[in-house]
């Protein structure tokens, strides 16, 4: 009986008291970061710590499934100190730092090869290790073109997770584990994102803004919603699909906003390089504060959308090429990133199709009510993205139709109606009245369509309902409209202008021209 009690006591003690470490494995892992500016790589190398990466102490002489001696992780300075409970004398011990974060309870990041293998930075082997001998591998550095790229991607993902924590109070949880696929040996020619998986171009290991752009797609897939149809797209394309234009704009803006929030240099600049081992190599340098570069109007440009969202939070404090200046277009807004985030994670998530309209209407949605309409209008207007009443509103009915005389020149209009004055838009129909003499000919047409607009024109009889003439598309591939019509009798008639059915948006601006020879 006494023996049994003693055995139980020993067993309980073994459970209750953590085993005492026999030795400690320590060291520090740093990595080379290739510095860049708007021209590409500068030639400068800075040394950065590999933060919060898993550390595994192993006996490399054993089979893979029996190698593990202890787990740990690196700290904010790349240091690790792992207690090892192991009383065996071993011919070799080794530490390896892994591109995953399982040892950090609230961090869910990994970088893998295209086939799914976790990267491992290995120390040298310590030979003939006695059971009580501490091993300090000292400072180790992952070098460029030799694994530093993996460390850089991992580190940016950690910064990204902390940016999410700043916005939401917590890093992305386990259901939002982000996986970066990256090859150190070539084969991936374009960076892309699907769901929680980011696949990086094999030459993008130091393209920090590209990495953060793609990471931002993952964030929006996880916390917001995307309707991006994907595919090849170009910065200077002013007529992108509005779903693609907004999602790509949001990714560029949000990725750069991580840099801005951390006070990093060139926060305002998206740079894609060729990845050359020499200096330079910038292929796209896209300045979020330069409205003249890749100048486009309307919300079918990823550049215009991204600059508008960027300017909401840009201030004189941004670490950009013009420190101390709140850049073009001048505005009065310098709002926290949380204001944009609330829109992404709130109303945008509920949109049927996510476009620039979703952001604008989400901003003014009563659940968010971010306000600042005059300043928001100033910013969006500088890109001719016009999500507000035109001067002819309200003219949605024949009773409120705007009188129109032929030959008055171009009338600038938008399909945007705001019935309750909250600045959130609704479907709009524009009606105009005119008087005609019997036999008088008229031409009415829409021109200069912007923001994925697609017009439909009708001429209505004096009763305001009978359609006398109509046109949807002026020609194949041209979504503007044109009607040539002759009045059979004198009277008052109406022009009804509305969005054509279909498409992914409800707003959009255009010019109306009404003439009579």
């Amino acid at each position, binding site marked *: 009986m006494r023996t049994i009690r003693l055995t139980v006591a020993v067993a309980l003690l073994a459970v209750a008291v953590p085993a005492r470490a026999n030795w400690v494995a320590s060291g520090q892992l740093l990595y080379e970061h290739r510095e860049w500016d708007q021209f590409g790589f500068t030639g400068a190398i800075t040394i950065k710590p590999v933060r919060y990466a898993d550390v595994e102490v192993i006996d490399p002489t054993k089979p893979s499934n029996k190698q593990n001696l202890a787990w740990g992780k690196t700290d904010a300075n790349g240091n690790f100190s792992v207690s090892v409970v192991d009383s065996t004398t071993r011919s070799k011990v080794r530490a390896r730092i892994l591109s995953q974060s399982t040892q950090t309870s609230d961090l869910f990041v990994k970088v893998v090869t295209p086939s799914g293998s976790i*990267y491992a930075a290995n120390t040298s082997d310590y030979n003939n290790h006695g059971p009580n001998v501490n091993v300090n591998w000292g*400072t180790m550095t*992952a070098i460029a073109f030799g694994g530093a790229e*993996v460390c850089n991607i991992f580190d940016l993902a950690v910064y990204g997770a902390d940016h999410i924590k700043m916005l939401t109070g917590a890093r992305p949880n386990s259901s939002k584990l982000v996986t970066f696929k990256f090859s150190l040996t070539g084969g991936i020619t374009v960076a892309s994102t699907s769901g929680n998986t980011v696949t990086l171009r094999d030459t993008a290991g130091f393209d920090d803004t590209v990495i953060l752009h793609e990471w931002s797609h993952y964030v929006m897939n996880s916390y917001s919603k995307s309707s991006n149809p*994907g595919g090849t797209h170009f*910065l200077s394309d002013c007529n992108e699909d509005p779903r693609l234009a907004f999602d*790509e704009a949001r990714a560029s803006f949000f990725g750069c906003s991580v840099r801005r929030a951390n006070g990093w240099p060139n926060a305002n600049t998206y740079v*894609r390089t060729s990845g050359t081992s020499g200096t330079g190599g910038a292929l796209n340098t896209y300045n979020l504060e330069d409205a003249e570069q890749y100048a486009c109007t309307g919300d079918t440009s990823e550049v215009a959308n991204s600059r508008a969202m960027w300017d909401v939070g840009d201030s004189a404090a941004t670490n950009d090429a013009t420190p101390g200046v709140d850049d073009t277009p001048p505005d009065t807004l310098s709002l926290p990133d949380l204001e944009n985030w609330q829109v992404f994670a709130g109303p945008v998530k509920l949109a049927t199709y996510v476009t620039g309209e979703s952001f604008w209407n989400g901003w003014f949605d009563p659940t968010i009510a971010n306000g600042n309409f005059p300043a928001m209008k100033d910013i969006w207007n500088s890109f001719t993205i016009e999500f507000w009443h035109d001067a002819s509103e309200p003219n949605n009915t024949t009773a409120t139709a705007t009188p129109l005389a032929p030959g008055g020149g171009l009338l600038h209009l938008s399909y945007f109606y705001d019935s309750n004055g909250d600045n959130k838009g609704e479907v709009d129909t524009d009606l105009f009245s005119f008087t005609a003499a019997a036999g008088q000919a008229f031409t009415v047409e829409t021109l200069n369509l912007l923001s994925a607009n697609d017009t439909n024109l009708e001429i209505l009889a004096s009763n305001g309902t009978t359609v006398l003439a109509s046109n949807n598309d002026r020609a194949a591939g041209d979504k503007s409209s044109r009607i040539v019509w002759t009045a059979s009798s004198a009277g008052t008639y109406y022009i009804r202008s509305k969005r054509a059915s279909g498409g992914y948006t409800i707003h959009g601006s255009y010019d109306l021209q009404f003439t009579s020879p």
Partner: protein
Amino acid sequence: MTTIGFGRVARRVFYLIAACSLTASAGFATEPKSDLALELRLVDTVVNQGALGRGVTGMAKIEIALDSLRDAHDVVLELRAPDGRPLQFRSRPVSMGPLAWSDPRGARIAPGSRGILIPARGRILTRLDVPLEGAAIHGLVVKAKAVSAAEEVETEAFVLVPVGVPMAVAVEDPESGLANFTVKEAN
């Protein structure tokens, strides 16, 4: 009935495979491109270990894809070293000779009065054989130039080519599921 020679079939198959491999990410959110954009992929490297006192040489086989937002013409490729100088082989600039361009469906594109054309939002493909000298991991820059909207546009891409040495920056171990790379340790 049309009889297509084996070489023609093989060429079409190659261009189809190349088009698929270089557009595998279509449908995903992808990174934005410049007006003229070049993708390249190292397909293979043939190594000649050298004889009669000559050093190791290699032939890098590279797939090229060029995208253009607008119509572009007079497409020209150049080979450069990472320092920007023209690529040399045995002390002479490497000549590419005439290139066989194709559209993504494998149809041959013949040069016209304005050289090789890329249609707006189109893609053309070719393949390069690039001679390299010396056992090393070579950095190779392919630069593309064209005329678009009456202006010269250019772009480039970079690739590392191992000749006579392993590209062993990360060795995948199927047993452990890890891709191991070494780090520089301070003495």
